[in-house]
């Protein structure tokens, strides 16, 4: 078992944060070692955020720029809000990965290059020349390691085929990076042992390669000139932690909420990138009273959930933008029926098929307004991967309390990215009290709770409560079909009022950063981290700005209007063309300064910092 060599640790530079990007072919296992490196860092008490970035094709042609799969993560000793703007270190498994990965690498950053891959053909596919390589050498700190060859040497006594041996090379890179940053490789060894328990030869090969990579760092002469790092532990709330991606967190949040409500969970869903893992995760949890139904299409996904909700389950459907479009008619039915339902939209680049694996925040308007008729629903948004758990939970709480559908917005970045999640104990979670109606005395399907305006949840199988509901307008008490004009107006207003009343039940917004500043950065969803980091940096450099983050988009928090009016300038960074900005203007009659990027990647903190500078300098008004 390797250990920290005394020699190496003496030379280590302590850093507060570091951003590493692994890049290789989409079959090279970059996502895997990225996640394992994150686990190693988490074990050593670092805070972290990850960002997998992979092509839409499962296996694009080998060695091409289109086939490059990347995984970026930032690990640190203090609050890590994002996977980092610009990597400090790039691990490039081939020339294409080098070319793609260099974009955004810090000036003078470290490049660890697998030189076994520098064949004429690979260089040609990447469009790189020998001169380009020389230029890279002068601009960055390039370390050349024959990763493929060293991997083959490490496993040559195991009788693997050359292809099998080569496939282990990602572990060599991980071993080397682990040594460079002084992260212990034990969690990875444990993982390898579990994962390949049924295939001892592959298990041994991967472990040997990992250790070889680590030892190579310790021994290779080339690394004597190599800066070695250490990252102290982060200060985090005490507790039991695990790493969760946003999609896992959504799934677990739904299960936790159903448990708290004392009901079974139903998910009706159709596969779609980047939301499918929610279905995968929940499909594993049958023993926890979870029923998953892989429907024939998106519409059947939500319709089956509507049926399950009518029959007394905590029901949800998960999708991405194109699927949300298809579900909108049924969503209108759910709010007409006034049954609890959770719709998870993991947003991706649109419109149409758009950018299936890239991130965007462009479904806000379709979430709030996307249905025919006056059809309001509650809309929540998660701010980071761990928050996906809490927002999914919150959606169930609100949906069951008010008997309404609730949309939870996540996005591709949160869905695939991971970060440490503190596992709560059930009694720290808010109460979810569900009362299924059983008493036939005085029962009317639309007789409302005076406070929440919720109608009773009366499920099939309950004697004496037989009733019919549907998408036609209903009498405000009996639920029978009614075409009466005054009744229709009353029902339209009541459905609106139900949503409005949710405002009493959600927290006010907080002002973070410099509360006395005249400029606020207002965001929602996954830009939270980048905005927080930019506010941090700006305030430290003497530019006072505040952050206001919205987890509740409809209804908006009760104090938001008053809070926004305290600021002279309200900057709204979004990965769309100004959807929240428009809502804030319309709702509060205030000026906003939108800052919009739609690059398919998260907004970087540095971009926001630069934009705020421009605002202060009067370049942008």
């Amino acid at each position, binding site marked *: 078992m390797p250990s920290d060599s005394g020699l190496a640790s003496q030379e280590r530079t302590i850093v507060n944060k570091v951003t590493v990007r692994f890049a290789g072919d989409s079959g090279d296992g970059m996502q895997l070692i990225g996640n394992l490196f994150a*686990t190693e860092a*988490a*074990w050593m008490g670092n805070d972290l955020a990850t960002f997998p970035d992979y092509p839409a094709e499962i296996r694009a042609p080998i060695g091409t720029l289109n086939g490059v799969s990347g995984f970026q993560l930032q690990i640190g000793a203090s609050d890590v809000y994002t996977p980092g703007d610009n990597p400090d270190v790039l691990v490039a498994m081939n020339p294409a990965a080098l070319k793609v990965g260099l974009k955004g690498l810090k000036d003078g950053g470290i490049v660890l290059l697998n030189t076994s891959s520098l064949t004429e053909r690979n260089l040609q596919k990447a469009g790189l020349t020998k001169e380009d390589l020389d230029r890279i050498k002068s601009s960055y700190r390039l370390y050349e390691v024959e990763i493929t060859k060293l991997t083959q040497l490490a496993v040559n006594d195991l009788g693997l085929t050359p292809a099998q041996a080569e496939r282990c090379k990602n572990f060599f890179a991980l071993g080397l990076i682990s040594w460079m940053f002084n992260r212990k490789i034990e*969690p990875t060894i*444990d*993982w390898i042992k579990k994962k390949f328990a049924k295939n001892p030869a592959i298990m041994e090969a991967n472990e040997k390669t990992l250790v070889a990579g680590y030892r190579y760092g310790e021994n290779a002469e080339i690394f004597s000139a190599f800066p070695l790092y250490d990252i102290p532990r982060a200060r*985090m*709330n*005490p*507790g*039991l*932690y*695990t*790493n*969760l991606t946003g999609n896992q967190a959504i799934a*677990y949040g739904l*299960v*936790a909420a159903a448990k708290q409500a004392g009901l079974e969970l*139903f998910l*009706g869903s159709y596969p779609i990138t980047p939301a499918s893992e929610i279905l995968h995760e929940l499909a594993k*949890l*049958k*023993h*926890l*009273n979870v*029923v998953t*139904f892989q*429907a*024939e299409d998106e*519409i*059947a996904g939500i*319709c*089956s*959930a*509507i*049926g*399950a*909700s*009518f*029959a*007394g*389950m905590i*029901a949800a459907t998960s999708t991405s933008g194109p699927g949300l479009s298809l579900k909108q*008619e*049924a969503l209108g*039915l759910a709010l007409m029926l006034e049954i609890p339902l959770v719709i998870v939209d993991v947003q991706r680049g649109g419109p149409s098929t758009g950018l299936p694996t890239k991130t965007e925040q462009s479904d806000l308007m379709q979430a709030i307004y996307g249905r025919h008729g006056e059809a309001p629903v509650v809309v929540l948004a998660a701010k980071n991967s761990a928050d996906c758990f809490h927002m999914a939970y919150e959606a169930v709480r609100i949906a069951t309390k008010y008997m309404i559908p609730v949309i939870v917005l996540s996005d591709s970045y949160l869905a695939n990215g991971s970060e440490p999640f503190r*596992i709560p*104990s059930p009694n720290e979670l808010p109460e979810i009290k569900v009362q299924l109606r059983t008493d036939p005395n005085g029962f009317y399907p639309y007789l409302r709770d005076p406070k929440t305006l919720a109608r009773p949840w009366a*499920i*099939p*199988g*309950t*004697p004496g409560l*037989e*009733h*019919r*509901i*549907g*998408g*036609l307008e209903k009498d405000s008490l009996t639920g029978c079909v009614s075409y009466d004009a005054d009744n229709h107006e009353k029902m339209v207003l009541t459905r609106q009022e139900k949503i409005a009343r949710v405002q009493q039940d959600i927290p006010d917004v907080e002002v973070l950063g410099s509360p006395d500043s005249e400029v606020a950065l207002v965001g929602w969803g996954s830009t939270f981290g980048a905005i927080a980091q930019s506010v941090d940096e700006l305030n430290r450099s003497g530019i006072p700005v505040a952050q206001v983050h919205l987890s509740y988009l409809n209804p908006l928090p009760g104090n938001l209007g008053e809070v926004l009016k305290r600021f002279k300038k309200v900057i709204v960074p979004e990965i769309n063309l100004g959807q929240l900005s428009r809502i804030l203007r319309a709702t509060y009659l205030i000026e906003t300064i939108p800052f919009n990027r739609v690059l398919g990647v998260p907004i970087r903190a540095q971009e926001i910092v630069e934009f705020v500078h421009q605002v202060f300098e009067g370049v942008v008004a």
Partner: protein
Amino acid sequence: MKMQESASIPKFTRKDLIPGGEVKWCPGCGDYAILASIQKILPELNTPRENFVFVSGIGCSSRFPYYMNTYGLHSIHGRAPAVATGVKLANPKLSVWVMTGDGDAMSIGGNHLIHALRRNLDLKIVMFNNEIYGLTKGQYSPTTQMGQVTKSSPYGVPDYPFSPLRLALGAGATFVARAFDVDGPHLQAILKEAALHKGSAFIEIWQNCVVFNDSVFDPIVSKESRPDHLLYLEEGQPLLFGKDKENAVISEEMSPRVVPASEAPKERLLVHKSGLQDPAYAFLVSGMTYPEFPVPMGIFRNVQSPAYDEILDGQVKKAKAKAKDNSFMALFDGLETWTIN
């Protein structure tokens, strides 16, 4: 009826199924007869009234749930099988019925229909076929005969129609039957068989639309036409028809052929068997159309195969038996965790 009395299930009558309020179908609509038949058989099924759920889509037939004093959900166009799937999965004890029409089931909801049948989920799918869009006032549907003039086909329908039975058979339905509105006793017998079937059941009911497609089935179902143009399928009986059963249907090169009964070679005479696993016979018989053949009414296929809800229940039981723990914390089992003090 005796069985029901001996059971501890609270009795209810046909009257208990009438919710009050007006039934708003056109006077003379075939839907009334179907409603009456279902209200008649439900009390005979040994199932408490609160366990019936009627789910529908959009169309005249889909108003059905409003006229039944059971649980009911009038959903959106074409989606009833999907909604009903959720209801059944949430509570497999419920008797879940999908009430739909030819436009709702075969056109906008075609996808949901075939998948519900394919899964063999225990749903009773009752399709009212009047070969027309009634609620939108008279456009042709996927079952309207080719060439028919309707509001949306002034020059005649250019589409080939679906055979609902063959569509259901092709989708793997384990129970496939056809009946028609005005023969109450036959319809009730078919509906009852369907209700007792475990798995997906598809029942096509020919239903006369008095306003937009009046008498379209009369050449087959009118009292005068029946002897020569309608054939009641009876289990184990040869396919004979005519006033004096003087005609027979035989199989010739995997197709049906009508011959005088006296000349029918015994080995080629078709004898009705609904329980064949292979749907080839059911497919052959369901292809007998007017005017070349007498049109069969009855149960075309009735086979047992594990139902989706039973398979799922088996998986759940297996998962629960295997799990050490099903508490909240069991959620995080199998994940790498660490403690920060």
